[in-house]
C-alpha cells in the first residue's frame, strides 16, 4: 500500500467537497474491494474519504411502495432486515449470499454497486427489480447505471447515497457460486411487479450484468419456469475463463432462471 491522506467527513456535502479537492482520491465504504487492490499496489489513491461517519447513509426503510437502503448499509444488515424480509425476502437473500460473515459485516450496498464487479450479486438485484440509484446529484435508473465491467454511470466525485427498490410481489435470486471466490459464477434475479417482468443476470456476461429480454417476453404469458422451458441464450457474449466455458455459463443462465422462477412462485 502506498501512503495516502485519510479523511473522515460527517456529511455527504463534506465528502463531496473532499473529493473535489482530491481529484485522485477515493471513497472508502466497507473497503472489501478497494483495500485489496491498494494492498497489492494496483491502486494508489492520494486521499481516502471514509464514509463510515457520514450521517444518514445507513438503514433499510419501507417508503411507500419502495424499500430504500442507505448506501453504507452493510450486507449483513440488509440480509437480516425484518422490514425487508417481510415485504421482499427475495431481495434479502442477495446480500445473504455474499462472501462470508466477515465480508457481509463490512461490505456495503453502495460500495458493491459503485464497484460493479461483473460477478457481484447486487447489480443483478438492482437491474432485476428496476431499482433507482440515488446519488448526491441525481437519481439514476438501474437500466442506465451499469455500463459494463467495473464501470457505471457515476461521474467523477459522485456519491451514491441510497438505493430504492420497488417492492415486487414476486422476486427471487438464484446464485451459482464461483468455486474459488464465492462471488456469482452466474446469478439470476427474477421479479414480477404488475406487468413489469425482469430477468437480470450477473457473472455470465462479458459486459457485466444484463437482462434476458427473450425470457422476459416469454414470461409475460405466465410467470412460471414452464414458460421458459427449453429456452436458451446464446453462448456468444458470455464470459470465458478457467472456471467456466461460455456454453456452461449460458446453460446456467437458463437453469438458474427456472429455479429462481420456481422460488419466486413458492
Amino acid at each position, binding site marked *: 500500500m502506498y501512503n495516502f491522506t485519510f479523511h473522515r467527513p460527517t456529511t455527504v456535502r463534506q465528502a463531496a467537497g473532499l473529493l473535489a479537492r482530491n481529484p485522485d482520491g477515493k471513497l472508502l465504504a466497507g473497503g472489501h474491494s478497494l483495500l485489496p487492490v491498494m494492498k*497489492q*499496489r494496483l491502486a494508489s489513491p492520494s486521499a481516502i474519504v471514509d464514509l463510515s461517519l457520514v450521517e444518514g447513509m445507513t438503514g433499510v426503510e419501507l417508503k411507500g411502495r419502495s424499500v430504500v437502503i442507505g448506501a453504507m448499509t452493510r450486507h449483513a444488515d440488509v440480509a437480516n432486515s425484518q422490514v425487508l424480509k417481510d415485504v421482499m425476502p427475495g431481495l434479502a437473500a442477495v446480500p445473504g449470499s455474499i462472501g462470508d460473515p466477515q465480508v457481509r459485516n463490512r461490505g456495503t450496498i453502495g460500495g458493491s454497486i459503485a464497484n460493479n464487479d461483473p460477478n457481484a450479486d447486487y447489480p443483478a438485484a438492482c437491474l432485476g427489480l428496476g431499482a433507482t440509484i440515488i446519488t448526491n446529484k441525481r437519481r439514476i435508473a438501474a437500466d442506465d447505471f451499469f455500463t459494463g465491467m467495473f464501470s457505471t454511470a457515476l461521474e467523477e466525485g459522485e456519491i451514491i447515497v441510497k438505493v430504492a427498490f420497488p417492492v415486487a410481489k414476486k422476486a427471487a435470486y438464484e446464485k451459482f457460486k464461483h*468455486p*474459488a*471466490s464465492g462471488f456469482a459464477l452466474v446469478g439470476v434475479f427474477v421479479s414480477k411487479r404488475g406487468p413489469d417482468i425482469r430477468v437480470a443476470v450477473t457473472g455470465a456476461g462479458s459486459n457485466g450484468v444484463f437482462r434476458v429480454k427473450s425470457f422476459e417476453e416469454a414470461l409475460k404469458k405466465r410467470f412460471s419456469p414452464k414458460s421458459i422451458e427449453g429456452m436458451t441464450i446464446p453462448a456468444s457474449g458470455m464470459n470465458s475463463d*478457467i*472456471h467456466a*466455458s461460455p456454453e*456452461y455459463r449460458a446453460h446456467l443462465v437458463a*437453469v438458474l432462471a427456472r429455479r429462481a422462477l420456481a422460488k419466486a412462485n413458492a
Partner: protein
Amino acid sequence: MSATGIGAPVRRKEDFRFITGQGQYTDDVTRPGETRAVFVRSPHAHAKIKSIDVSAARKMPGVIDVLTGAQLATDKIGNLICGWMIHSKDGSPMKMAAHPALAATKVNCVGDAVAVVIAETIAQGKDAAEKVKVDYEVLPAVVDPAKAQAKGAPQIHPDIENNTIYQWHLGEKKDVDAAFAAAKHVTKLDIVNNRLVPNAMEPRAALADYDAGTDNLTLWNTSQNPHVARLVISAFIGMAPEHKLRVIAPDVGGGFGSKIFIYPEEVVCLWASRKVKRPVKWTSDRSEAFLTDAHGRDHVTHAEMALDANGKILALRAKTIANLGAYMSTFSSSVPTYLYATLLSGQYNIPSIYCEVDAVYTNTAPVDAYRGAGRPEATFVVERLVEVAARQMGIDPADLRRRNFITAFPHQTPVIMAYDAGDYNASLKKAMEIADVKGFAKRKREAARRGKLRGLGYSTYIEACGIAPSQAVGSLGAGVGLWESAEVRVNPTGSVEVLTGSHAHGQGHETTFAQLVSERLGIPFENVSIVHGDTDKVQFGMGTYGSRSGAVGMSAIVKALDKIEIKAKKVAAFMLEAAEGDIEFKDGKFTVAGTDKSAAFGDVALNAYIAHKFTGAELEPGLKETSFYDPTNFTFPAGCHICELDVDIETGRVDIVNWTAVDDFGTIINPMIVEGQVHGGIAQGVGQALMEGAFYDAAGQLVTGSMMDYTMPRAHDLPSFHVGLTETKAPSNPLGMKGCGEAGAIASPAAVINAITDAIGTEHIAMPATANAVWAALQKSQAPKAA
C-alpha cells in the same frame, strides 16, 4: 489404558496457545535492529537478464542494501540442490541444473527472485523494489510437461536437452509385455494428476541474525526439518560451518511437505544478515506463496492393466511424465520415482509391473513432495485402473478388488516394497458395512427422483510410510539417512523433557509423544514436555514428513525410554538395597520382586541426581538417555475409503453425501488426533479431485495466483465423515505404528473420481472435476440429461 496413556483421546496440549493467538511463529520472533527483505521477482516465465540497475533503489528512503545474484556469486554462496540421486535407464545421472538463490543471468519461472532489497520497513522495501530496473529479454516458455520434451520446445537450462532430467524405470519390461500379450482383458487410461498449491495457513518466513561478536548465524524459519536445513545450508550452500549455524523452526503453521525444502529466501536472508550486520526478516505474502512455494503432483500418465478372464490382475504398466518445474527442489527427484512407482502394486497381488518416468523442466514453480508425495499419484493410477477394469468386465468393483487382494504376509511386490502386515479384506468389509453399500441402489433411486445422479466410488489404497530405513534409501540414491533421534531427560523432581528430531507443524506431537512417556514411565501426562525444532537443543533429527514421526520418531523415544528404565533400575537397586535383577518397574513404581519394598519414579529420579546412595565409580549420576532409531522397513498403512455423491443433472454440481474411511494405521496413540489427520487428508484429497488445480497460461503466468481463482476446499464442501479403524500391528517398529498423516490425501481423489464416473457413466473425468467439467462430460455420456 490410562486416561492419558497410549490409546487415549487426550485433548491437544498445544491447542491452548494456538487458538488463543499465543503461538510463536517465525514472524512473531523479533530481534533488535531487525530489517526486512523484499524480493524483486521476475514477471516473466522465461527471460534472459540483460542488466539489473539498482542505483535508484539504493537511494530510496530506509534502504540499507540492494543485493543481486552477481554479488551472491562473488561471495561464493552455493546453489540450492536436490539431494536424491536418480539414474536414468542408461545409467546416466540425473541432470540437475544450477539453482542460484538469486538469478543472475536468466529467470526460469514467474516469481524467480533476481534481487533483494534490505530496508528498515516492508513498505520502504517495496517502494525501493519498484525502483530496481531489470532489463529482460523475454523468451518463449513451456509449462505443460507433456510438451516440454517436444522438438522445438524452448530449452530451459543449458546442456539439458529436451528439458529432460532423467528417464528412469522400474520393473521388468519383458515380463510385463509377455503378460499383456497373453491377457484376456486390457484396460487403458490416460491420467493427469493435477498440479496443486500447498497453501499452508502460515506462509513461509525466515529471520536471519548474524552475530559479529561470535561469527555465529541464527536462522528462524518455517521448516519441517531444521537439522536438514542446517546441513544443506552448511554443506552445500557453504553459508557457515554447521557448528556456527543454528536453525530454529518454532511453531510452524502447517507444511504438507512444502516446508521440507530449502528455499532461496532463507539462504538470501542469512547471506544478507552477514553483509548488513543486522537481523533480516522475510515473511512471504500469499501471492508470493502461490508463486514460489514448491507445488505438488503434476503428472501426465498413460497406464494399462492386464487381466485374465476371471478378473485376476496379471500385470500393470505405466509411462509417466513428471513436471519438476523450473529447478529441482530438495527432494523432487524421489517423488515421481521411489515414492511413486514402488506403490503401483496397490493392495493387489500383481505378478509384474513396469513403470517408466521421465522428469522434465518447465517454466513453472518447482514441484516437490506434497502430502502423500508420489503415493497419491500411484493410488490414483491403480484405483482408477481397477475400477474401470471392473466396469468394463462387468465385475462388481469391490469383488474385483477382493479377487486380487494380497492376503499372505510378508509379500514382496515386483516394485521393491515388501509389505509386512495388513488385512485388506477386513477394511473393505468394514467400510462397506459403515457405508451401507447394500442400501445404495435404493438411495440411488431416491436421488434420481430429485434430479440427481448418485454414484459410489471405492479407493482401497496403500502407502509406504515410516520413511525410512537408511540403508534402503541410501541404495536408492538418497543423500541422507532417514533414521530419527531422541533424548529423554528426567529431571531430579521426576518430570521429563523429551528432545526429538521430529518436528510438529500441526500433528500434535506435544500431546502424543507425552502420552507415550506418561504410559511408559507411569508419570502424569502434564509432567512431560516435548522439545523440538532447535538445532542447539536437539542434537540431530531428520524432521517430519512421510508419516514418519510416529513410526520412526516415537520409536527413537521408545529406545531412549528403554535405556532410562535400565538405568533407573540400577539406581532403584541401590536405593532398595536389592539386586538389580530383582527390580521390577510397573505403573511408575520400582519394586523388589517378592517383597513389599518399593520406590516411586520421582524418588528414583531424585536419587539419580543427588547420588548419595552410590558412588560415581559404581554408577554415573543423572538420568538422561539418547538414542538413534533406524527402521528396518517402511510401514504400510492401508485401508478403504468409500465416497458417495450426488451429481446435479442440470448443473453438474457434485455434492458428497457420505464419506466412509476405514484405515489400518497399526497402533493408535491418540484416536482423536488420528481422526483429525484423516479428516484433513480427505479434505485435501477432495480438494484435488473437485476443486484445486494450479493453472499456468501459455506464457507461463500463474492464472490461479490467488484465492480468488485457486479453489480451496471449505468446511461446507464436505460432509461429516464416518471414520473407522482396523488394526494389524506394524512388525518393524516397537510400537506397531504405521502412520496416519497422509492416508486421507492418498485415498480420497480416486474414491471421488470413481464415484463421479459411476454416477455419470463415463470412463474417466479429469481432476479437478468442477461442475463445468462434470456438466460437459454429462453432455457426452449416456446418463439421463436435463431438459
